[in-house]
């Protein structure tokens, strides 16, 4: 009898403890409702639980305020990366034959990928608009080409970018003829530069400056094509 009464009391207490814990979970650090407070007063187990969770919270808060020393190599490496990306207004370390600058596409595969994506988008645009123009595109520079495949990747890239430019601009419907003329004319300018750079690279394969100019010219071409697309989609306006 005594045991039954004790078991019943424990069962009731546990049910209430379960409920209390659910309330703790939902209230988080907020004030407890009156029934929960009443249970807390009556139940030592839940009092200990509540105190323990509070202690864990407080200890965690102290941990949060803690600051840990950072190895200096993190800053050194970060600074190098900031320099490499040109985020810092710094002088590039003097490296003969490789003046750093905004043409470092070759050293930045992510940028090359984005640039190529731009050309791919232009090709897709042409395909969408005309339906009949098909430019087979693939991504020779999706990942940085290994040294011995570089020249063949360049060749493919050149052929495709020439194709895109020459097909794209006539296809676009740009209201302002002066704008179309300007785009066409400047596309010719950039293609001419690309050709000159390619000659230089062919004649002097170890001329890094020429190579950088070449990729800079590709980048300019992508920008120009993006501008052309932009003006066409919006009809010259937005």
């Amino acid at each position, binding site marked *: 009898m005594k045991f039954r009464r004790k078991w019943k009391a424990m069962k009731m207490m546990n049910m209430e403890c379960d409920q209390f814990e659910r309330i703790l979970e939902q209230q988080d650090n907020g004030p407890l409702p009156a029934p929960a407070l009443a249970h807390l007063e009556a139940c030592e187990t839940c009092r200990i639980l509540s105190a323990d*969770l509070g202690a*864990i919270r407080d200890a*965690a808060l102290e941990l949060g305020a803690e600051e840990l020393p*950072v190895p200096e190599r*993190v800053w050194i*490496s*970060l600074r190098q990366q900031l320099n490499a990306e040109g985020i*810092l207004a710094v*002088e590039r370390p003097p490296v003969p034959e490789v003046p750093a600058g905004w043409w470092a596409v070759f050293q930045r595969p992510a940028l090359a990928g984005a640039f190529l994506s731009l050309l791919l988008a232009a090709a897709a645009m042409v395909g969408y608009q005309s339906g009949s123009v098909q430019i087979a595109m693939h991504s020779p520079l999706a990942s940085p080409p290994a040294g011995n495949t570089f020249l063949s990747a360049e060749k493919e890239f050149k052929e495709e970018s020439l194709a895109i430019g020459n097909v794209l601009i006539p296809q676009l419907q740009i209201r302002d003829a002066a704008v179309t003329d300007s785009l066409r004319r400047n596309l010719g300018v950039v293609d001419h530069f690309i050709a000159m750079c390619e000659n230089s690279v062919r004649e002097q394969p170890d001329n890094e400056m020429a190579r950088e100019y070449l990729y800079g010219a590709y980048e300019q071409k992508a920008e120009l094509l993006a501008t052309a697309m932009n003006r066409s989609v919006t009809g010259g306006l937005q």
Partner: protein
Amino acid sequence: MTRTRQTDTGEMTEAEAIRLAQQGDAGAFERIYRLHSRRVYALCLRMVGNTAEAEDLTQDAFLQLFRKIATFRGESAFSTWLHRLAVNVVLMKLRKKTLSETPLDETNDPDDENSGPRRELGAPDLLLSGSIDRVHLQRAIDQLPPGYKQVFVLHDIQGFEHNEIAGLMNCSIGNSKSQLHKARMRLRELLQETLRSQARQDRQAAKSEASGSG
């Protein structure tokens, strides 16, 4: 020797450093880094539990910060902005790892097989108040399942609210609260085990000391 455009940081305030950093001033970048790197590193370390990874994540967080600093317009506190950015960097990294592909409501914790809260009837509860050692707490946190750990670190250590955590981790507020509670309960068990284990060791040490002297 690299020559940079660098302002003498000296006693540069954070606001001044942000303004100059937006112009690419190297000294300003460094000032911002020195002001905040320790907290960011601590956050990363707590979330990944590994110093090498924490260093990489710290670097990534600041790299992202400095790439985007020109867009900071002062609508919120800079430290809040940086904090969120760092958390996003860490979470993205964790998501890429296999373990973190585990959905938030699934854990490796065998205790989770029961839907309701676990209760040991009759087992004595140890009071933790005043006994939580920082090192033990950190070790216990490292033993938490990933989902629990992330929510606990973000809420109790870093001070994010549940609605913010829900946004960062793409879960509901209820889910965040539930995970936090489970994390705390699990930590409690781990810390109690640690206390018991320590008490046992102390008793054994006292015994051998007594028998040695006797």
